[in-house]
């Protein structure tokens, strides 16, 4: 960089969108813009999404990030972060992931909610959050940080829409009434070999706890989770890199399986 960027919210959103479009990862914005605090980062994220909508995309839901306590302690926060999902990130079932559209994608298995009711904080609890869920699904999320080597501070990753890249949701819809999501298990496999396992308890103790915390956090920014929206509740295991020709599978106890193949 030969010329100092004159940073503001709009510029940061443009820089991140350009990095995504050109598949060009970059250093943390906070290295160059000391003013990028968490509140500002969420405004960058909102601006970035507004620009995607202006380009023809539609909002389909919310993703929760940093939902494991270990990751939160590393980042110095005590609730999940949120990002906005658009239809531009949605993969159709059985359509291969195009690696040439991404920088350094990694995949993680998730428990996915589809909302029956609007969920607006404050005062949302895990019980009321779960009551707002229509159906639960298996999911795989592809994350792809626009920062070099996934190295970022909390405001950087929030501004980058929490590394959102792609997601696929399994076709089996299960009522949350019949599930114990803390014990809902997932086996993550690469080309058929199991590489990691976890249960829903890895997500904030229970995915509905994460959903409640996110709803309450969104309310502080004047936002809510809408009826019909998809919620990616957070990675159950560490994310694994995906390479050309690989098939990544997530097999759940009750939610069925979901697969993703890369070309």
């Amino acid at each position, binding site marked *: 960089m030969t010329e100092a960027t004159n940073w503001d919210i709009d510029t940061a959103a443009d820089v991140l969108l350009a990095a995504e479009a050109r598949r060009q990862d970059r250093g943390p914005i906070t290295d160059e813009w000391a003013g990028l605090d968490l509140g500002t980062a969420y405004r960058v994220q909102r601006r970035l999404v507004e620009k995607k909508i202006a380009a023809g995309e539609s909002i389909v839901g919310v993703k929760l990030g940093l939902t494991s*306590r270990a990751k939160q302690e590393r980042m110095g926060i005590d609730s999940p972060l949120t990002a906005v999902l658009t239809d531009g990130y949605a993969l159709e079932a059985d359509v291969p992931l195009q690696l040439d559209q991404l920088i350094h994608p990694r995949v993680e298995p998730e428990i996915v909610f589809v909302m029956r009711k609007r969920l607006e904080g404050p005062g949302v609890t895990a019980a009321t959050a779960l009551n707002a869920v229509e159906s639960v699904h298996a999911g795989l999320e592809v994350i792809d940080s626009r920062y070099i080597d996934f190295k970022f501070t909390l405001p950087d990753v929030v501004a980058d829409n929490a590394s959102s890249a792609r997601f696929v949701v399994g076709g089996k819809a299960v009522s949350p009434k019949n599930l*114990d999501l803390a*014990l809902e*298990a997932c*086996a993550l496999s690469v080309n058929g*070999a*199991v590489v990691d*396992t*976890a249960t829903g308890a890895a997500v904030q103790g229970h995915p509905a706890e994460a959903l409640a915390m996110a709803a309450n956090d969104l309310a502080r920014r004047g936002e809510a989770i809408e009826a019909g929206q998809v919620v990616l509740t957070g990675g159950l295991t560490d994310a694994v890199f995906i390479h050309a020709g690989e098939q990544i599978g997530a097999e759940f*106890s009750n939610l069925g399986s979901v697969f993703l193949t890369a070309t």
Partner: protein
Amino acid sequence: MSPQLGEADRADAALRLLQAYESGVAIPPLTTTQPGLTVEDAYDIQLRQVARWTAQGRKIAGHKVGLTSAAIQRQLGVDSPDYGHLFADSFHLESQPVPVGAYLNPRIEPEIGFVLRTPLAGPGVTVASALDAIGYAVASLEIIDSRIEDWRISLPDTIADNASSGGVVLGSVPVPLDTLDLRTTGVVLRRNGRIEQTGAGAAVLGSPVNALVWLANTVGALGVRLEAGAVVLPGALTAAVDVSPGDTVTATFAHLGSVTATFAAASQE
């Protein structure tokens, strides 16, 4: 893989491990003090200790399979599990504090334990015959321990050290296999109420039954049969967690209920 160490060296290694139990002082890795130690040497060293223990009147209650997860195999650079022997006097009751001072460097991990209904004699055991031989599954906690300093183990070290076996706590609900999907049976491991690990049966060689097949065929090749009533701990569903005096560790499983190990406070020992 053939024996590299002489008879005297193998006897000496077994003696030093036996002394580590007595003294409570771990020994340096055998692979550093006796370079060239092979897997075959290591099983011979394990069996020498087992022979000593059975001569003392200790009763073999079953086997454990170790090194069954992708993560631990990557960590040790191996692509095969190992096995050790479980003794009846190392089974602790759920309601009674485990004397943590009896161990050198204990860790704990949740397992889906099997109890055999019929004997299982390899070689030639398949998933079908293994499933057929299992009487029931039971929620289990395995206390693993190492007589090798600071767990600095390579594959022959842990094999020689009875596959790092320590103790066992079994739950009390026997669950028949026909209601279980062993692969996607989940577990949450809590230490003092805090979630430490989560996992599922698939972490164990893809399914815990695969570990039983491997065990039956491996010991079968040595002329050893797994007996009816034997307990088999097929491998951990999560990474192991360190335990300290006073800790309470609970593994809560889908379908299998829970099992709790309490560790005596330092003052109680």
